[in-house]
């Protein structure tokens, strides 16, 4: 009797594992950063991790955009902040620099704003990334300095990413052509179709300095989201000056 119970338990466990690990397609991982949380004043090497394709379609490129902090939306404990990002971060801008790598794609480049500061990057071309495998796109995340006079205990930056499986125009975006790890509510053609705003990868910088006494014991959580204008400007991929995605 005991043996039968053990067999039943094994069978149920195996079924459960099979259901979660392989035979269902429900829990597809989002594209995220390898290191999502870092202490302020710390530079790290990081990776965008592409974890799957568009259904059965391989990934042929990726486009990554960091909020520029210029016209970004800033939330403080979930409430809109009308001041600037410098109220909480001293040095945001040009901190994310792409590392050269042809491990996944053959071409890559950084995207810059009008002052030449890096606001994103792309990688693509060469062999496609098999839809069942992970792809690591490396970059250097520079040291972020939280304004010491602020009450910020952490600052979360939302990073918008498009994993491209087929080059189309924006009208051709679908689950078979692109995975949009973007906000669902900016009103751009790049918005993720989702009921929840869980698309972008997050990068959280945590404070190491003491909070001013006026902040109390807990401080505030700051979030930074890109504007629609920035997404429309910076999400497209340009190669040698010509836009190649979207068509």
């Amino acid at each position, binding site marked *: 009797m005991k043996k039968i119970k053990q067999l039943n338990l094994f069978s149920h466990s195996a079924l459960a594992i099979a259901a979660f690990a392989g035979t269902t397609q429900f829990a597809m991982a989002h594209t995220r950063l390898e290191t999502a949380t870092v202490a302020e*004043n710390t530079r790290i090497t990081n990776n965008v991790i592409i974890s799957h394709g568009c259904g059965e379609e391989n990934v042929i490129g990726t486009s990554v955009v960091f909020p520029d902090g210029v016209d970004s939306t800033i939330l403080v404990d979930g409430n809109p902040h009308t001041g600037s990002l410098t109220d909480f971060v001293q040095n945001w801008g*040009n*901190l994310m620099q792409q590392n050269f790598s042809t491990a996944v794609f053959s071409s890559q480049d950084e995207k810059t704003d009008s*002052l*030449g*500061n890096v606001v994103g990057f792309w990688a693509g071309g060469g062999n496609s990334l098999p839809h069942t495998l992970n792809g690591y796109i490396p970059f250097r995340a520079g040291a972020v300095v939280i304004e010491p006079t602020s009450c910020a205990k952490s600052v979360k930056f939302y990073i918008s990413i498009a994993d491209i499986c087929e080059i189309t125009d924006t009208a051709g975006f679908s689950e078979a052509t692109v995975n949009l790890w973007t906000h669902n509510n900016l009103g751009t053609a790049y918005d993720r179709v989702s009921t929840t705003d869980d698309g972008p990868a997050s990068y959280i910088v945590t404070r190491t300095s003491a909070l001013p006494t006026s902040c109390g014991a807990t401080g505030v959580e700051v979030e930074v989201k890109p504007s629609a204008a920035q997404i429309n400007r910076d999400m497209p991929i340009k190669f040698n000056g010509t836009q190649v995605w979207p068509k």
Partner: protein
Amino acid sequence: MPCVSKMKTIKLAALMVLLGCVNLSKAHEAGTVMDSGGTVAGFTGYALVTCYDNGNGPADHLLASVRDLSKPQDGLLVNLQVIKGNRAISTTDAVSGDASYSPEVKIHGGNGSYLLLVNKTKAGARSFAVSYHCITASDTHTGTDIAVQQFE
């Protein structure tokens, strides 16, 4: 400076030249042309240099200097100011077009963001270079990054 000629705007030129196009002898030396049209007396370049511990130790201070690469012009000199917290310092390249930088200035601000301003004494195009290095208390070079905030 062929890479400069490819730039569509002077703003774009600013960081690209600052960060990569000019083949200066070592990292953290950078330059470009300000007031290329020669009409903006108040032209100001504004950048943030972040000092941090890259494994060599926390920064104790920032060393900086500026070099005017253009031919001498009467009354036209390039100046660099560095600000961190409640400290500030400035330096001027008194001899334009020679091989020397201005006197090096040091500001003790530890880790964090240092404001660098570059300007000049009157209207006129100036090709210039800035040297900026975050240094530990034991005189070792440590983490140094830059972002341009303004170039106009």
